[in-house]
């Protein structure tokens, strides 16, 4: 019995699991406050968390070799769904991000958050690293295609995050700094073009308000300004749980989803913020440790890619609510209220745990 139990949960990485649990706990506390003490919301959130943990557990039991072989299939399936969602959107003459299967609705772009790093890692590890030009081009293409499809939805935020998750894998695979630098230069050159041709007005507005949210504090900058006021007024110790005026009196927009960090920052102050950051960094560090200690290139790249991408989510969310990044709809991992993203995250960590299981003890 005991042996069975052990083997049943042996796929779970204890440090990662406890870190996730702690962050989810903090998330529940913050959400209870942010939702205006809405117990129903908390129950729904718990149900989703439960489902997500289940998904994580299942994924953690899939051998990495299987994942590696499935990379191409999953990636292609994701692409098909993206095309599908886009064509439905075109027919329906409106932005379309969701696929509705009747019993569940999900965004295909969420799948890509996992499959793009998998696909990239798979392509890159076919040949010795660092990649040659052809392999590299192939990898870049694998990242670019879904990104373009998602931009068309249009969902710039998610597209950028997916581009980041793929790019991180490519970066870890060791492309030369020369190439990175020249890409950077190209980016700077392309920026005006992107500004004029690709970006929608509301996206431009978000970027403009980033630089000076106070210039339009009641209009486009309202979200950011209220969020900054909330965090700033929290001070070192915070205003206390359920006592944040910015939060409780609904000055913070989207307070239970994208802006939940502002609620947390207002009520728990710098102390709470540091605690949360430490927990996040612990997860990232554990992920990196797994990547460093696993002995196949695919797992190394994937584990590293997923960990760093996770950090990027955290960074982008906190960066946006504290006013150093534009407002792109990125939830705070494990804390924000919201369905699909939490499942995707858990699946990512499930993969990490699956990899961690194979690390040979010293």
């Amino acid at each position: 019995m005991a042996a069975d139990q052990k083997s049943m949960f042996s796929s779970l990485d204890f440090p990662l699991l406890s870190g996730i649990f702690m962050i989810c706990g903090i998330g529940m506390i913050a959400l209870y406050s942010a939702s205006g003490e809405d117990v129903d919301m908390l129950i729904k959130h718990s149900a989703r968390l439960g489902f997500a943990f289940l998904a994580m557990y299942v994924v953690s039991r899939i051998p990495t070799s299987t994942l590696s072989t499935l990379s191409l299939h999953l990636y292609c399936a994701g692409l098909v769904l993206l095309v599908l969602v886009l064509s439905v959107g075109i027919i329906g003459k409106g932005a379309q991000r969701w696929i509705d299967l009747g019993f569940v609705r999900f965004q295909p772009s969420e799948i890509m958050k996992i499959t793009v790093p998998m696909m990239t890692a798979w392509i890159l590890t076919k040949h010795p690293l660092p990649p040659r030009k052809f392999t590299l081009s192939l990898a870049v293409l694998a990242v670019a295609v879904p990104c373009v499809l998602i931009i068309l939805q249009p969902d710039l935020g998610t597209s950028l995050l997916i581009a980041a998750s793929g790019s991180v894998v490519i970066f870890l695979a060791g492309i030369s700094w020369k190439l990175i630098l020249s890409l950077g230069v190209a980016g700077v050159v392309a920026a005006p073009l992107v500004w004029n041709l690709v970006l929608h007005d509301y996206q431009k507005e978000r970027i403009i308000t980033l630089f000076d949210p106070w210039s339009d504090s009641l209009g486009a900058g309202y979200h950011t300004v209220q969020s900054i006021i909330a965090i700033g007024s929290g001070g070192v110790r915070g205003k206390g749980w359920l006592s944040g005026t910015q939060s409780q009196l609904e000055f913070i927009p989207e307070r239970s989803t994208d802006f939940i960090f502002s609620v947390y920052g207002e009520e728990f102050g710098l102390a709470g913020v540091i605690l949360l950051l430490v927990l996040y960094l612990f997860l990232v560090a554990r992920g990196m440790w797994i990547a460093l200690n696993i002995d196949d290139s695919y797992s190394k790249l994937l584990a590293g890619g997923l960990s760093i991408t996770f950090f990027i989510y955290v960074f982008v969310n906190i960066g946006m609510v504290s006013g150093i990044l534009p407002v792109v709809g990125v939830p705070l991992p494990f804390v924000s209220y919201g369905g699909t993203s939490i499942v995707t995250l858990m699946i990512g960590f499930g993969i990490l745990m699956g990899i961690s299981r194979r690390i040979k003890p010293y």
Partner: protein
Amino acid sequence: MRTLNGFENDSGVIHLRYMQALLVIVGLTFLLVARVVYLQIAEHDRFESLSQENHIDEVSLKPVRGLIYDRHNEVLARNVRVFNLEVLPDRIRDMSALLNELSHAVELTPDEIGQFKTTLKSRPSFERQILKTNLDEEEAAIFSVNQHRFPGVELNVHLQRNYPHGNLTAHVVGHVGRISPQDRETVSQRGDYSGISHIGKIGIESHYESMLKGQPGRSQVEMNAHGRIIRHLSQTLPDTGRALHLSLDIKLQEESMKALEGYEGAVVAIEPKTGEVLAMASVPTFDPNLFVNGISRAKFSELNTSSRRPLFNRSIYGQYAPGSTIKGFMSLVGIENGYSHDRRVFCPGWFSLPNNSRRYRCWKKTGHGYVDGNSAIEQSCDVYYYNLAVRIGIDRIHEGMSRFGFGQKTGIDLPNERSGLMPSRDWKQRARQQSWFPGDTVNVGIGQGYMLMTPLQLASVTATLANRGKSVTPRLLRMTENSVSQQLEPHIVPDKEKIELKDGRSYDAVIEGMRRVVYGNRGTARRLQEEILYDMAGKTGTAQVVGIGQDETYDEESTPKEHRDHSLFVGFAPLQDPRIAIAVIVEHGGSGSQVAAPIARRLIDYYLIERLKMYARPETPSSGKEA
């Protein structure tokens, strides 16, 4: 599958990159921490105060407007609870659909919807707007049950100004109305209006606005992002405005209105001793309650364009030729200037100036024969006064009449009273760029020509006469009351000096003439003496509205109504200790003795007998209904 060797090689590459990535992560984390430290430590004070400003707000607490009473504590203006349907425009996605839906639950007239839509366009969308006022209990109940279907629509209870005597007091008490954009410009100088939505527009409500309005209170509240009040933090309560006790006797006012029913005209009754206005009626009138929350366009235009001019307060804005009613004063000015009251003048029925063929007619074509001062007043002989006026001359007439207040505002506590007109050489030169002709003087002698007076002025000078020269400032406010402590404070008006004449007996001489108007055998108002219980003095007046040619005769029957004479009467009673002085004007009523005089008698009767109970009507034999 690639070899282990290949992996070792890969591993080296990846590990190097990991170290670099780690550096970036540490760097970015440091950036985040730095940002949060900046916000929460370095700039904490600033954001702390910003968050305070965000949710702590001061709201004004509307004061209750002071009540208005008549002299017997009858309420003339009060505040009643009303249900208003209010809309928060920025909470509503589809206004037309909402109005459509709402009209099933609450009756909405096209007028109300139209007015509401007009306001919506001109006001910011975060400002709540009234859709319908004065819902009755049933409508309010029906809406309350269905309220959940109409987010953004609220049923609110307000105190609304209400005038229980409606049209009886429309002109005098006046009414309040919503503060208009024009009002807003002056409101800041008139004190604190925060939270106050209505302001006195006309009448007493306007004149004593600053006493009535009260002082707004303040409440510090916690508000959420949508402006909804979560809780009150601290409060200073508003002060209720002062209550006003007017001198008006609403019963006499009502009787005056009744007496004038069907006519256009005015009655002003004053207590001579104090100058307190007992009644001030202007007919036709209107319902002031219509104006409190904004009158509909159609209704206003109906009132405003009516040929009977119900919105026009004739008692202080109407300026009429006083006609013969001022003959008593003309006599006083005459006596004062050496024109003896006993002098006898022969009236052949007409008068003409030397070297001028134009005849100025006496109202009695056959003439009065020889008349002295008393019989001239009694019979209202025009020729006597033509003669008197020409003898004294316009300059002395102007000076003498001005002493009694002719051509000057009375100083009543109502806004914008008119001053009437006591013509003079100067005035004619200034206003008409013409010199004064002797014929002008003739007309002034009988209160015609350029001379104009308001009904209030007529009543006021009559009070002066009743007081034997002691003039008073007519006024409506007797006392003010602290609405909380109910402490009364008399409203003091500075005394006027008695108008001293060279011969102190002149007043009584003229009053004797005016007594004979009622009691003399030939008195123009001798009909009034029937069954009269007290002594009174009076003077009829019949004022020409259009000039009559030299050879025409005036025939009332054949004259179109708007050209008929105005009918006037002034009088006071009782003779020795006057309690009431009255002026009655009936526009186009014809002769003063036939229309205005009986109205005056009826009102004096009513006041002295029914109100003051100074006299008792003789028992009339019962009509024996049981028979």
